[in-house]
């Protein structure tokens, strides 16, 4: 039998059901793998005792025949989800001591469905970043490296710890959050599947907010089927979130029919950006061919405002974050730095508590909202955002789903882009437009670069149509036969 950590979430579920192994065995295997993978720095907080206690409870339930949909399946939780009694840091110094007295809506749903929590995984500080290099707790390493190279590669971000844990096989799956690409881009960099559902599908209640109008939780897994299984548990109406959509959650697993005959797939021409690596172009074309071979029609579509999505995003997201992060003031929770007076305490706490990138975004956000600039920046961005959403709506009159690369490159080396914020921001060029429009998007591993690094393809769907996105992703996955896995260089022998 294959190692328990090599199983997909679906196979582990079925194995538990067939009593091939126990939840405790499955969890212990992952706890050990998690410990062995410490060189990757994927976890901020490991909770092995809690995991084993949850697994024991799962074993009881399995024995009693009352197993729930995710019974006994060990997963990692991005440290942006508040977890009751377990420290939640958002990878920031300012929340370093914070232990929530409440459980986020999404993690509650997962635990109610029987999932086992291995611990809290690393991310870019407050989810701001595309390489997981802004974490106060240090960068996460991508399990993947270039062939014949020892240099660290970034896992992408902000859900870098989640992607590394799933890719490195020390979690069956992980939760992520995506504001401008933070699920899809790290999934692509680490060779796994990540889906950002439609804005409003997953409750934001209890997730540390970055940019409220964009933040959305989603699963990160090794297969499309796993993503479907996990998304179903994570989704659903929550009266505590005013932006949550009151709509039935489909059985996503059932949507994976493998049949896309007659499906119309759009190729957004504007995504063919200058300087895009040849191999990304190639894999994109290959993706289109695979879908065509499966019976889909391929059509070029126009999304004329694509190039303005990033500048729009870099107004809207910092503006919202500058306000969302005002609550970290040292009064009620988190870090407090002493000051001579109240202002001294505020400035000291926030100056010391936030890292460089977070400070940069707070300052930009403060600036674009300030008197005299609001109309020129924020209001302008919200108008362009409306036009971007209209572009998508027009495109979806002609096609059912869009196919594009997930990121403009494979995983880059650590430190390669930290000096230039804009070069870093360009990583999200293909993921940000769908985020602005609130649309579902998935990244599926489609192949390896010449240097042996994973490349992802992205599918974007209509609002609330995760089923088509997942079904098409399943077909891509089937065709791509992505079976490569990273060498486990971190394991000491």
């Amino acid at each position, binding site marked *: 039998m294959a190692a328990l950590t090599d199983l997909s979430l679906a196979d582990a579920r079925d194995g538990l059901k067939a009593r091939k192994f126990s939840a405790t065995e499955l969890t212990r295997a992952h706890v050990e793998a998690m410990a062995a993978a410490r060189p990757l720095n994927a976890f901020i907080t490991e909770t092995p005792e809690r995991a084993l206690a949850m697994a024991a409870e799962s074993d009881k339930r399995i024995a009693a025949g009352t197993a729930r949909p995710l019974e006994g399946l060990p997963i990692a939780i991005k440290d942006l989800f*508040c977890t009751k009694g377990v420290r939640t840091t958002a990878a920031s110094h300012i929340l370093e001591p914070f232990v929530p007295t409440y459980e986020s809506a999404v993690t509650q749903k997962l635990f109610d469905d029987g999932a086992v929590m291995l611990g809290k995984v690393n991310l870019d500080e407050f989810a701001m970043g595309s390489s997981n290099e802004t974490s106060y707790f240090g960068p996460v390493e991508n399990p993947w490296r270039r062939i014949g190279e020892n240099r660290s590669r970034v896992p992408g971000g902000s859900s870098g710890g989640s992607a590394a844990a799933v890719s490195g096989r020390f979690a069956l799956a992980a939760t992520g959050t995506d504001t401008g690409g933070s699920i899809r881009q790290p999934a692509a960099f680490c060779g796994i599947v990540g889906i950002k559902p439609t804005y409003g599908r997953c409750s934001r209640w209890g997730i540390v907010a970055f940019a409220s109008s964009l933040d959305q939780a989603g699963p990160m897994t090794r297969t499309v089927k796993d993503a479907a299984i996990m998304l179903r548990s994570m989704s659903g109406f929550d009266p505590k979130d005013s932006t949550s959509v009151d709509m039935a959650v489909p059985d996503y697993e059932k949507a994976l029919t493998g049949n896309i005959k007659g499906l119309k797939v759009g190729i957004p021409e504007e995504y063919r950006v200058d300087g895009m690596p040849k191999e990304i172009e190639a894999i994109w074309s290959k993706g289109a061919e695979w879908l065509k071979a499966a019976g889909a029609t391929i059509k070029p579509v126009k999304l004329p405002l694509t190039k303005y999505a990033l500048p729009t995003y870099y107004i809207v997201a910092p503006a919202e974050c500058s306000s969302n992060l005002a609550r970290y003031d040292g009064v009620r*929770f988190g870090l407090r730095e002493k000051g001579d007076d109240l202002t001294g305490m505020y400035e000291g706490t926030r100056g010391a508590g936030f890292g460089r990138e977070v400070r940069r975004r707070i300052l930009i956000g403060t600036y674009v909202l300030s008197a005299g600039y609001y109309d020129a920046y924020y209001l302008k961005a919200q108008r362009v955002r409306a036009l971007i959403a209209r572009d998508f709506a027009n495109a979806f009159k002609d096609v059912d789903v869009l196919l594009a690369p997930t990121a403009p490159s494979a995983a880059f080396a650590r430190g390669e882009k930290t000096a230039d914020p804009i070069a870093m921001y360009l990583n999200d060029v293909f993921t940000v437009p769908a985020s602005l429009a609130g649309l579902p998007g998935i990244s599926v591993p489609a192949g390896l670069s010449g240097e042996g690094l994973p490349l992802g393809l992205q599918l974007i769907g209509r609002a609330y149509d995760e089923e088509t996105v997942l079904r098409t992703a399943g077909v891509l996955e089937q065709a791509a036969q992505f079976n490569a896995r990273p060498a486990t260089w971190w394991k000491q022998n």
Partner: protein
Amino acid sequence: MTSPTPALLKGETGEWELIIGLEVHAQVSSQSKLFSGASTEFGAEPNTQVSLVDTAFPGMLPVINDYCVQQAVRTGLGLNARINLRSVFDRKNYFYPDLPPGYQISQYKQPIVGEGIVTVDLPDGSVREVGIERLHLEQDAGKSLHDQHPKLTYVDLNRAGVALMEIVSKPDLRSAEEAGAYVKKLRTILRYLGTCDGNMEQGSLRCDVNVSVRKPGAPLGTRCEIKNVNSVRFLQQAVEFESRRQIDALEAGRAIKQETRLYDANTGETRSMRSKEEAHDYRYFPDPDLLPLELSQDYVESIRGSLPELPDAKRARFEKDLAISHYHARVLVAEKESADYFEAFVAAVEKRTTKSGRDIGQDCANVVVTELFGALNKDAKPIEASPITPDALAGLQALKMDGTISGPTAKKVFEEMYATGKQAAAIVEEKGLRQVSDTGALEAMVDKVIADNPKQVEQYRGGKETVLTFFVGQIMKASRGTANPAVINELLKKKLAR
């Protein structure tokens, strides 16, 4: 009857005009907060009526209270104002320890209620129409206590997130008195509507006052905002002090600095607030955790259909249907409870006497305003605590009207009822206060008083007719007030004329 010329203030360099605008914060009479399920009850232990949302813990989200939306619409309708079917909640960003998220959720660009009008009754009997600029919903802040510790400020978040209606007037007010009358009238309307309890002591109703002065006809002067004034008396004192301060400064050649000031009730003065000195840049933007608030016309109409009769309409009806004076009508409608009491009283009298409201209205108003309010005021009791029910008071009124007791006796019986809560008829029987109108019995009394006072008889017959009241008084005393004064008068005149 609009007051024509604004009151002017005298300074050394001539007359000054006072310009006042008010922002009234009225707490919505809801059970729970605007965006969280924590209680709004007053006076609880610190931080016990606080949810995770009010504390702005990471990941907490607001969900709006429908009752608060209804009350804002209801109030807007009561202020004759336009209801905006689409309004937007914005974030007003600033740092303060009693504002946990670092922003207040408020309505900035698109409030739920637009322009309206309040008719204000001035003490001289005239009225003035004051424009309402807008009404919007927003959250209250928590409480910072600065006097508990030498080096620390204590923060209690019980109030944080309580729903407020901010009612902004146009700068239409011209004197401290008008400002006071405006707040009183607004409070009356809110209490009629039931949307705010109007309790200024507990902070359910607070005013921010904008004051500026100018030479008549000149452009508007620089204004100062006096924050959080919590009584009508303080409001008037604050306006008086502040306008005088501004006039003195301007006349001494100093400019007025636009600033936020605090009224100190101990000294009666206003002073600059250090903590608010910094120029603010609130960086308003629509709250992305909320969606625009959209109301249907049906929703608004169903609220309109449930509005009670408001004080102005009630006063007009009292004057028209019950033929009572403008003054009495105004006094009676100032509190809804008083007006309700009065109407129950009139109805009960009508029932007992089969007289029409028009015939008895003014008499009834006199009794309530003079006797009952007088007694209650002395004891500082609200009308709800009256020991005499409207029906019991009607019992007394009926006895007076059918001649069973005299007017003076009625006053006595009233006092007894007020003190003991007994019914009027019982008191009259118990004490033998029934009025004597029987001519035979009274004639004997008249004869006796004439016989006993020959000197006064002489005076009367000599032309000093005022002596008649002396005789009446003597007889009333002898009869312990039960003699019918009309009959006595008649008899005395007849007998003395001989």
